[in-house]
């Protein structure tokens, strides 16, 4: 088992086990979920930035906030990504900016799509995956978040898009992190959703709960700890648990 650095202080130490060093299992898929405003997007951005600063490319699908907003949110934590946009280490698919009425400036690695057009979104994910894969056979992929997709499409459609997305990125060697706000779909859909992932991370505002399914070893690992959101992002503080 190979794990990659999460970039979240305390997280990699917490997730050490006899099967693997700590971190996020490479080429696996992780759902990060929990109630609103518990730090899911911050976690995603921190994970993405950690990869970028280690020269690991990132395919970032943003559906809740436009690229400008994502960049601004990251700047609040001093995670500056302008250079990575310029040197094309990060590849953005923006599924929401079209709603803002502003003109969208496409580039090689900044493309526009629409949360209400899943077919187009999947085409763009295909292009994006190939583009990122060309430069590296391992990369990080963020989808933040499923919320807006659920608001604009029938539930089962979102599940299908998600399955296709997860398959695509894992086939290309990507490590996927997907955000979802607990409680915005019915319990059945939510259960089905959670079952699609190798790992889940739940944030409830105070505690972080990690569940990793190492199916090759027929083992499920659980980790739990307190966490806080600081000016430098999320910090997992094992001692305070």
């Amino acid at each position, binding site marked *: 088992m190979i794990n990659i650095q999460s970039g979240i202080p305390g997280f990699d130490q917490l997730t050490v086990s006899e099967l693997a060093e700590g971190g996020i299992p490479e080429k696996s898929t992780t759902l990060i979920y929990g109630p609103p*405003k518990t730090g899911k997007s911050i976690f995603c951005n921190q994970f993405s930035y950690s990869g970028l600063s280690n020269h690991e490319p990132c395919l970032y699908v943003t559906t809740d906030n436009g690229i400008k907003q994502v960049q601004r949110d990251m700047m609040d934590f001093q995670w500056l990504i302008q250079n990575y946009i310029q040197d094309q280490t990060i590849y953005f698919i923006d599924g929401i900016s079209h709603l803002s009425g502003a003109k969208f400036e496409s580039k090689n690695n900044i493309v526009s799509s629409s949360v209400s057009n899943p077919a187009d979104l999947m085409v763009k994910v295909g292009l994006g995956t190939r583009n990122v894969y060309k430069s590296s056979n391992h990369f990080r992929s963020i989808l933040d978040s499923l919320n807006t997709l659920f608001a604009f499409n029938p539930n089962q459609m979102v599940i299908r898009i998600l399955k296709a997305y997860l398959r695509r990125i894992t086939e290309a060697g990507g490590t996927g992190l997907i955000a979802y706000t607990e409680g915005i779909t019915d319990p059945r859909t939510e259960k089905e959703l959670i079952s699609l992932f190798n790992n889940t991370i739940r944030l409830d505002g105070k505690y972080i709960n990690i569940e990793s399914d190492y199916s090759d070893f027929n083992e499920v690992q659980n980790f739990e700890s307190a966490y806080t959101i600081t000016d430098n992002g999320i910090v997992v503080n094992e001692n305070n648990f």
Partner: protein
Amino acid sequence: MIPRIESGIPGFDELTSSNNGTGGIPENTATLIYGPPKTGKTIFTNQFTYKGLINEEPCLYITTDNGYKQFKTNMDEFNWPIEKFLDSNTLYLIDTISNVSKGKPSQSESYIPSYINNPTDIMVKVGSGVSYISKNNHRFRSIIDSATTLLAYNENMLIIRVLKAYLMRVNEAGGTPIIVYTQESADSIVETMLKSMVDNIIRLDGENLYIEAMKGIGKHSSPYKMSGSGITL
């Protein structure tokens, strides 16, 4: 550092002040104000609106609960006269309800009628309202009072999409939007969705004001009271 704008609510800016001393509502972020009925949500937003107007920050106000007449009466009660701001077009009012009741004034440059049961029309008018206001101002405030009525008249997920588009537009133009919502007036999926769409969440329960989330600061709370001059923490 996140710039903040004055709320106009005595005590609020102190409660929300961050390490570097400034408090208020984070500029160009979205806020949800919710709580049970009659806890002062509308008063809070009107006070916020009026503070902006006297600071020469225009306001795009979408009223779905009270028609123009009732809105004006509500403001007058606290001695927040709005007529001159309507005349100077710094208050841009989209009134979606006066058509249903009676007593709507005639359409003007900044008084725009719409229809509560026609979200498409509301969005078109929000679009032109945002362009109108942001043409000459890079900062402005915007209110929807309330999402509850929109949800009551329309399919829920449609309104979630409308509100998402609204927030995207106001945000892009540099505005600071507030959405008012009566707690438990829609199912929990809608309520969670609303919370997930905004940056800041403020809950009023009649006795205490809770900052459940706010960009740059953690959770805070304070008792408050309502008087003839509005809400005071």
